[in-house]
């Protein structure tokens, strides 16, 4: 074991720096009072502007809704007829497609109806899949209700 040469490491002259145990505060750019003041100022200036905008926006919304409600009967009347026509067409196509399949009854699963606890000849709104069952899937509307968002 060789002996260490030269002087050993010693503390610097005057001793080590004392440990930092005091709290260092962050630099603050705004005091509490200033924050409250900014809050009040923003609200006092902004609220009238907001209310003004809201009033005009609300007026616009009511006008759009009024226009929409006036137009809906015209659209519904045509839509109902188109839906019934499509139901007829789907029934004809299904009868044609399944004519060679034994024991198949149109609109049922081998004679078993879709809904068992409703009276016969009840209208139940068909789903989109029922209406587009024999058509090209790319023809199915992606955004069904887009017209409801003016």
């Amino acid at each position, binding site marked *: 074991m060789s002996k260490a040469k030269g002087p050993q490491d010693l503390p610097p002259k005057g001793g080590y720096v004392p440990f930092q145990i005091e709290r260092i505060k962050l630099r603050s750019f705004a005091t509490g009072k200033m924050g409250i003041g900014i809050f009040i100022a923003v609200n006092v200036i902004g609220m009238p502007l907001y209310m003004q905008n809201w009033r005009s926006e609300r*007026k*616009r919304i*009511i*006008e*759009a*809704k*009024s*226009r*929409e*409600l*006036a*137009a*809906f*009967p*015209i*659209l*519904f*009347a*045509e839509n*109902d*007829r188109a*839906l*019934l*026509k499509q*139901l*007829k067409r*789907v*029934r004809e196509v*299904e009868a044609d497609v399944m004519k060679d399949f034994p024991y198949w*009854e*149109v*609109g*049922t699963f081998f004679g078993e*109806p*879709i*809904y068992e*606890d*409703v009276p*016969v*000849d*009840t*209208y*139940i709104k*068909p789903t989109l899949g*029922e209406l587009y069952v024999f058509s090209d899937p790319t023809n199915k509307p992606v955004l069904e209700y887009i*017209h409801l*968002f*003016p």
Partner: protein
Amino acid sequence: MTDSKIFALPSDQELNTEELSISWPYIAAAAVFLGKKCEWYHNEFMLCRYELKDPRKCLKEGKDVTKCAKEGFQEIKKHCGKEFEAHVNCVVDTSATGTDDRYCSKTRKMFDDCMLKNLNMERPSFGYFCEARVHDSPRPKPEPEPDRFTDRLPDPAAPPYPPPKYQGASGFNI
């Protein structure tokens, strides 16, 4: 049931009628005038649709609505065609959905003036179609659906309630 042979669908003769061959921006632009002109037919159709919940039973009312709208469009085209076309073009150019006319007050004013002058139709007041109104229909009221759940629990007591058995709400103060 929805599409089986028992389900009676109307004949082609009942379904086919002269449809509106016009696009949505035109309908939306003329909607308030048509709604005012055909108000009775619209109310009758919507009430039928709401009460019976069956499009097969409201085909006649629906045809009346389409016929009335068609007549209205023909009148507009005959008397205010140019103004209507200008207004719709402006709406289509400035709005995303082809209905919002907030940047078209000038053409809208011209269209309204023309409608008032030539057809004596005033634009309905603000929010007219958002108001609730009573419609007196000649069609009899439909029968309420019979109760199919015969073994259900009895209905709760009607408003003059009996006194509580176990101190009511204060019984929970343990």
